[in-house]
């Protein structure tokens, strides 16, 4: 132990990035910060693959008869786009990158409770990803990311087994990550850090972990049964022997609806942190925002049947699920109102993270409100299975979760890398993404209402104008996503040194140096104040 690190808050030359060198020091690391970076690199890789498939799809759909590929290929494109983006990018994104990096820093701990398990989770994720990539290379898979039976179990002759095994394996990465986070948040908090002093990011990650733990196993078992059925052609999801195809949908959506909250809840946590920092205000209604995260996690489990209103599910079950789906809208609305109120009488500055956060609120509001069309039985009958659904969930997942992820990366990048990135470029990228996103997905709401079904490789000519608009937006969106990639890489070498706390933010993670030392804190901090004590006298030194 060098003496330099024993002195607190000195810009120590030794940090988690330069403490060791060589590929072994990364691939066998137990440091949560390095594992976070491993995840960041891997999910960026998968994001680019998934994004590439999306671009091909949008180019294809410029012409009604399809401009680029055969229908079979198009089916594989949207399937792999969905599988990769959901299971290998969105679900892990904020929890594994920002959660891994920040949880120990935010609660004042040296690491997560189970560092080996953490590294194991990453390897499980990679193995799952390799299976999926193998399936893509070995001919692709064409079932849609929902794997509906009996198409997936009996009729599809593509690489169903490989991709199902990949997603199954990846599920355990999710389970172990959630388990690790819950134990860490329960057992490793620094002295004085009570539940109601925790940053809201931790509340949202905690709620997310609950879903990961309770939902993912059900996905695993339903995929296990699906794979058995696919291999042995006997089973419970195909009607040949008296099985019920809807049973698969029940089991699948029991996980896959709450999964939406796995994606959006952490983004909500990120947004709470950013808004508090750049408005220099404690989050309005802190406790209610915290509890609403948990409420969303719990209620999110009760609504899966709204994916099945037209599938032959009993109408009475539809009634119950519709009612419960409306309930989950309420905590989401409460969050939006509280974030907006946080700005009231604040001191608002517009650095890049704040732009992403505000963009998140806008897009999430639209995504959430359009969910009402789908929770309502009569309108869902018309809109289910159309582009309206596609637009709605992209507003939540891309407009919400990806905006939140990018906002979080912009917010904590100085902490992660120790460097600043060019604010002007970041603001420009945020604007391009916001515009490109809306141009891509807003026309799809109209397309859906007009009746264009999703997953169509070609379509009647009257839908062309809106499809072209959507494709044009996608090209703008694509550019918007590339810009941050460039300036983040640039900043690692050429960016100005950030210092411990470039934004003047509260929270334990800003009290240690940037990048943090391997052990995070030279002395375990003692927490004496509430979260977001921006109004109190400035205590942290500003770098």
């Amino acid at each position: 132990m060098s003496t330099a690190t024993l002195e607190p808050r000195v810009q120590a030359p030794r940090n988690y990035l330069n403490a060791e060198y060589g590929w072994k020091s990364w691939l066998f690391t137990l440091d949560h910060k390095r594992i976070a970076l491993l995840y960041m690199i891997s999910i960026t890789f998968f994001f680019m693959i998934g994004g590439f498939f999306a671009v091909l799809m949008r180019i294809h759909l410029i012409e009604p008869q399809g401009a680029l590929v055969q229908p079979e290929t198009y089916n594989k494109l949207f399937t792999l786009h969905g599988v990769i983006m959901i299971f290998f990018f969105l679900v892990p994104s904020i929890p594994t990158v920002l959660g891994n990096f920040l949880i120990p820093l935010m609660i004042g701990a040296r690491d997560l409770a189970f560092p080996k398990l953490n590294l194991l989770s990453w390897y499980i994720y990679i193995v799952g990803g390799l299976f999926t990539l193998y399936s893509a290379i070995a001919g692709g898979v064409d079932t849609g990311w929902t794997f509906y039976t009996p198409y997936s179990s009996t009729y599809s002759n593509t690489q169903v087994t490989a991709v199902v095994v990949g997603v199954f394996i990846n599920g355990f990465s999710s389970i172990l990550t959630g388990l690790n986070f819950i134990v860490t948040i329960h057992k490793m908090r620094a002295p004085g850090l009570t539940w109601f002093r925790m940053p809201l990011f931790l509340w949202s990650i905690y709620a997310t972990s609950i879903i990961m733990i309770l939902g993912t196993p059900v996905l695993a078992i339903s995929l296990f049964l699906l794979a058995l059925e696919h291999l042995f052609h006997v089973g419970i999801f195909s009607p040949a022997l008296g099985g019920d195809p809807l049973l698969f949908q029940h089991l699948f959506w029991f996980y896959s609806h709450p999964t939406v909250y796995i994606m959006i809840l952490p983004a909500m946590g990120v947004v709470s942190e950013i808004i508090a920092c750049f408005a220099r205000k404690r989050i309005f209604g802190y406790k209610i925002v915290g509890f609403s995260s948990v409420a969303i996690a719990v209620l999110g489990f009760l609504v899966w049947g709204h994916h099945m209103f037209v599938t032959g599910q009993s109408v009475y079950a539809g009634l119950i699920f519709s009612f419960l789906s409306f309930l989950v809208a309420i905590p989401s609305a409460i969050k939006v109102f509280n974030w907006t109120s946080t700005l009231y009488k604040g001191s608002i500055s517009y650095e890049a993270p704040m732009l992403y956060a505000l963009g998140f609120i806008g897009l999430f509001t639209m995504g959430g409100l359009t969910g009402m069309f789908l929770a309502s039985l009569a309108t869902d009958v018309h809109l289910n299975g159309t582009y309206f659904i596609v637009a709605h969930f992209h507003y939540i997942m891309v407009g919400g979760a990806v905006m939140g992820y990018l906002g979080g990366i912009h917010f904590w990048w100085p902490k992660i890398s120790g460097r600043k990135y060019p604010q002007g470029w970041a603001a420009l990228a945020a604007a391009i993404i916001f515009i490109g996103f809306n141009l891509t997905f807003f026309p799809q709401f109209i397309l859906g209402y007009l009746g264009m079904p999703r997953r169509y490789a070609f379509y009647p000519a009257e839908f062309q104008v809106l499809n072209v608009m959507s494709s044009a937006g996608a090209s703008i969106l694509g550019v918007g996503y590339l810009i941050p990639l460039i300036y983040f890489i640039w900043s690692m070498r050429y960016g100005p040194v950030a210092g411990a706390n470039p934004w003047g933010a509260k929270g334990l993670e800003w009290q240690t140096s940037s990048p943090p030392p391997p052990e995070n804190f030279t002395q375990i901090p003692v927490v004496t104040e509430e979260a977001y004590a921006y109004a109190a006298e400035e205590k942290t030194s500003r770098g």
Partner: protein
Amino acid sequence: MSEQIVPVKTYIVVFAGLIGLTLLTTWVAFIDLGAFNTVVALVIAFCKMLLVIFFFMHLRHSGGLVRVVLLAGFFWLALLISLTMTDYRTRSWTPAPDAWSTNAPPTHP
């Protein structure tokens, strides 16, 4: 460690109880109780589970948090089964198809 050390005798008694319940459930299977065979079998299984959880797994000495975690697990399992059943149990409530009405008058063999 503040862990309680349970006397060997307790374990033996619990084990004997478990064996007894196993014999009981097997014996009951040979008696015709109609639909209650299933109920009795599940109640006995539930009792056996409680014995294992409370004594072998030391839930008796575990903190509240562990109990909450376990209860959450069972609660969510109940959610999964009961909400899925809302579909299956109510499918037949939908009235049987309406009277057969076509333009052609019904024919008789």
